């Protein structure tokens, strides 16, 4: 049997004319948490580049020098593994927190949410409450309207530019950058990226807002894969709320069994993505809990218990009673937590065991060996010593794996038997391994070159393997 035509649900939403969403302002515990989160995260973002450490910017991704400074740590391109591990950690954390607490990331921490919130605040300072904003939007153009619109744009654009400037400030020292910017001295790529990031902020937080979450965000689509019956979601208590009714009808129907929902529509008005949470869990819901705050306020006013919309789980909704521990101790959470712990431990261990310098040894390509003075066989190696520490360091070289062999830095007159490499730099040297002709050797054999630090409390050693070639016997 085919269904009658009018019963077929047709997805027309995308082509429908949808109006700009004016989220109504809310007060309440979750709103306070959100505000705190915005202050903390934006505060961190704008303040971090201004902190100095040891005479330089504490957090500086110095791309031209190919060095990342993060407080007392300096990372090199060779330390790429740490960036990889960090990204894996970030991904696993997202899985872990999503499994436990649902979309807390979306509601409280995502840059899209955080900057949108800041832009909405500015909009409210200038244009007033939701009702005032909607009135202004539908009003004909007037001096008053123009003034408000211009003020808002000036605020938005300045804030966006400052955001872009701060972003570039993570890649080149921000103190100089800001001075240059104020004097219109910034040019080239720095200016390009300031404008680029500023424009992206302006567009995303000022205009696109919830549409980024709805249409463009991959996480919003696949987060449900990490959800299960025990994941925290924002849910409307249908059993308690329905049948909803309002106003006159509510009074008239007073005798019949009415739900607690007074159908005031506040939960829809406060929603930054413009959905009705009473329709059930939807992927547009970013779990910001604005509707919880809104509904709680109304319930308090009309003298009903709060929690008609609340953080809940699917299992709880269906009447299961589980303790917090039971909810947390489920395979999905345990697996994510274990993976997270393993990678985190690996990350910290690798970080602590990271050697303070690195050596590249390259055989001289011109000749396998040459005869040196006193009938010695000499092999020459190009050596790049990378001092990854924060202090100047000097190195000595030793050779192992070949009896009677000696090793020296080329041009020994420079400074004896050691070589100095300034902090954070790469020294290029030539190392000569010499072997008396009468020693025992094969045509080609593996040797180890040891490099030792001579300064500091805990001098480290790095050993590199290479080959020593001699004449045919």
């Amino acid at each position: 049997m085919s269904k009658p035509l009018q019963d077929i649900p047709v997805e027309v939403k995308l082509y429908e004319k949808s109006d700009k969403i004016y989220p109504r302002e809310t007060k309440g515990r979750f709103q306070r948490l959100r505000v705190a989160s915005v202050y903390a995260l934006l505060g961190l973002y704008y303040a971090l580049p201004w902190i100095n450490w040891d005479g330089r910017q504490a957090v500086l991704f110095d791309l031209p020098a190919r060095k990342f400074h993060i407080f007392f740590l300096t990372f090199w391109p060779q330390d790429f593994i740490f960036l990889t591990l960090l990204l894996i950690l970030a991904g696993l954390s997202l899985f872990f927190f999503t499994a436990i607490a649902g979309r807390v990331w979306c509601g409280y921490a995502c840059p899209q949410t955080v900057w949108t919130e800041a832009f909405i605040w500015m909009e409210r300072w200038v244009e007033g409450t939701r009702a005032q904003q909607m009135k202004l939007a539908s009003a004909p153009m007037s001096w008053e309207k123009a003034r408000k619109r211009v003020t808002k744009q000036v605020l938005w654009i300045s804030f966006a530019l400052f955001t872009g400037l701060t972003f570039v400030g993570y890649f080149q020292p921000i103190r100089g950058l800001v001075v240059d910017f104020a004097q219109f001295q910034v040019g080239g790529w720095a200016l390009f990226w300031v404008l680029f990031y500023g424009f992206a902020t302006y567009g995303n937080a000022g205009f696109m807002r919830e549409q980024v979450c709805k249409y463009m965000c991959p996480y919003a689509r696949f987060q449900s894969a990490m959800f299960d019956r025990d994941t925290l979601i924002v849910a409307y208590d249908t059993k308690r709320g329905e049948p909803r009714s309002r106003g006159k009808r509510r009074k008239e129907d007073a005798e019949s069994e009415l739900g607690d929902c007074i159908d005031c529509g506040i939960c829809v008005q406060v929603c930054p993505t413009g959905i009705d949470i009473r329709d059930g869990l939807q992927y547009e819901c970013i779990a910001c809990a604005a509707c919880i705050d809104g509904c709680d306020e109304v319930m308090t006013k009309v003298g009903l218990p709060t929690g008609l919309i609340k953080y809940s789980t699917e299992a709880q909704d269906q009447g299961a009673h589980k303790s917090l521990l039971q909810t947390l101790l489920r395979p999905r959470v345990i697996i994510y937590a274990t993976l997270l712990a393993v990678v985190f431990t690996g990350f910290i261990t690798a970080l602590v065991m990271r050697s303070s310098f690195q050596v590249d040894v390259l055989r001289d390509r011109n000749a396998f060996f040459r005869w040196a003075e006193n009938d010695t066989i000499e092999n020459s190696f190009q050596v790049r010593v990378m001092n990854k520490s924060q202090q100047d360091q000097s190195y000595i070289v030793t050779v192992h794996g070949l009896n009677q062999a000696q090793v020296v830095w080329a041009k020994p007159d420079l400074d004896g038997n050691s070589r100095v490499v300034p902090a954070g730099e790469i020294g290029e040297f030539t190392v000569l391994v010499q072997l008396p002709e009468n020693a025992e050797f094969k045509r080609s054999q593996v040797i180890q070159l040891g490099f030792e630090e001579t300064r500091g409390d805990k001098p480290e050693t790095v050993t590199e393997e290479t080959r020593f070639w001699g004449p045919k016997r």
Partner: protein
Amino acid sequence: MEQSRAPSKQMIRLGVVVWVSFLWAAIATMLFFATFDPEELSQLATFPMTLDRTSGYSIGFLLFWVLLMLNGWIVTWLLQSGKPSGDALPAAEGERHE
């Protein structure tokens, strides 16, 4: 018009292609330039070329981005345009006979 918030299908397509390409371009840039130094790469060019690192990273990123956007645009175009004439249209939900 500020009032109208109706993203057309093509606008959504553009947004998705641009944004997803941006994310991948960022990842590709990190992977690529952690391995290769743009300054040294520019010396391997087949014609005389001077490129400082900052320009190298920026151009590299933009190049990745443009390539990925082109790719995304063509993929989405192929997916949404034209159907081989012989193919039967997949039955819509309501027309399925049980």
